[in-house]
């Protein structure tokens, strides 16, 4: 079957081209993918698994990618993969409520002096971010570490623009609360 062989070669060639353009467009965002997965899963090995899986998914869906924002496109897939992965592998911490009333700190407590950011070292800060509820953590990471615009975050997290803004505001407020309580605990101990 000569035409079958040619067909197969042509198909192989197409696949090679797809792989090449995929690697050019998507592979450079590996650090961003890992960073998001690592912050969402809070575990090195889990993050690696999720990222590998996300890359495979991205490759399968690559036909639907038309060269827009490769990083946002990939991070959207990483996020979805993480959520699916967590549903299968984790306790229902995902469904944790966004309880703003919890440990509510009056805003006038939050002056720069009280925040004691000089004392908040990297370790404490990392811990505080990890303590954030998942929904807060992801918008904060995308904004502060990936420096994404609200529009990009909206695309990655599949949220309306207004929700991105309000969720980010609440995430920062919560982070400050956590930091304040941690620094106070440290001062007291």
């Amino acid at each position, binding site marked *: 079957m000569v035409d079958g062989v040619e067909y197969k070669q042509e198909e192989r060639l197409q696949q090679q081209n797809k792989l090449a353009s995929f690697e050019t467009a998507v592979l450079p965002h590996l650090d961003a993918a890992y960073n998001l997965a690592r912050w969402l899963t809070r575990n090195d090995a889990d993050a690696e698994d999720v990222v590998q899986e996300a890359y*495979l998914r991205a490759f399968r869906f690559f036909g639907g990618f038309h060269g827009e924002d490769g990083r946002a496109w990939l991070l959207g897939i990483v996020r979805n993969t993480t959520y699916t992965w967590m549903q299968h592998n984790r306790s229902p911490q995902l469904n944790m409520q966004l309880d703003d009333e919890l440990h509510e700190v009056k805003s006038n407590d939050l002056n720069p002096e009280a925040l004691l950011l000089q004392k*908040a070292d990297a370790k404490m800060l990392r811990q505080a971010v990890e303590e954030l509820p998942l929904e807060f953590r992801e918008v904060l990471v995308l904004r*502060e570490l990936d420096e994404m615009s609200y529009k990009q975050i909206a695309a990655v997290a599949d949220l309306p623009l207004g929700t991105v803004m309000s969720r980010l505001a609440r995430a920062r407020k919560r982070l400050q609360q956590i930091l304040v309580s941690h620094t106070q605990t440290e001062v007291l101990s």
Partner: protein
Amino acid sequence: MSCQTTQELIHAYVDGELDLARSLEVEQHMEQCEVCAIAYRNQIALRSALKDSSLYHSAPAGLQKRIRSSLRREAKSEVGRRLFGWRWLPVGALALVLLMALVVWRAVPGLRPSGDELLAQEIVSNHVRSLQLEGHRTDVISSDQHTVKPWFDGKLDFAPPVKDFSSQGFPLLGGRLEYLNNRAVAALIYQRQKHFINLYIWPAEPGNATGEVATKRQGYNLLSWTNSGMNFWAVSDLNAIELQEFARLVQQAQ
């Protein structure tokens, strides 16, 4: 601008997501309001703390290599999947359609040819074949019924009635063995002027006697009946009336 609005917009302002007019309003408010200015400085401090604390998790060494090789495997298996999917899709679809057609055909009685219809088809085919092959028309050539009848002896598990109707214009030409309806049958060949008549005879199943049935297939007239425990099928390109006449002769001879 109120403190509440400013506090709401301060995040967008810090993130550079506020339009110019709103940004100016926020700035004007903060010049006059120490609380909001502190809130702003808080955000700036938090932001730079987050940035300076090397919170960014870079991908571990080796992950890129692992992803590359898993992608290569995926690409290969996609070729296999697509080749299978595309090349065999029409074949698979056709097979499925045929299968479904068969199921419907077997399940719906109206669509399924009855045993008699299949048999009529078989008989017409046999008749045509016997005329196409000169040598196949008869195994025993004789107009003598006393030659033809014994010829079947030992070749069949029954003795077919053999009669010559030369005097009525239907001379017997001979006989041959055929295999029809999943059994060996006797075939007698008669002639009417230029037309040939094949008369197929085999034992009828007990209690399965049927009246005379006339049909027409592919331009051939068929006539079937049961008589004296035998099935008779006469087929010819002869017109239906003369074939009926022939059948009458056979029936009366029993």
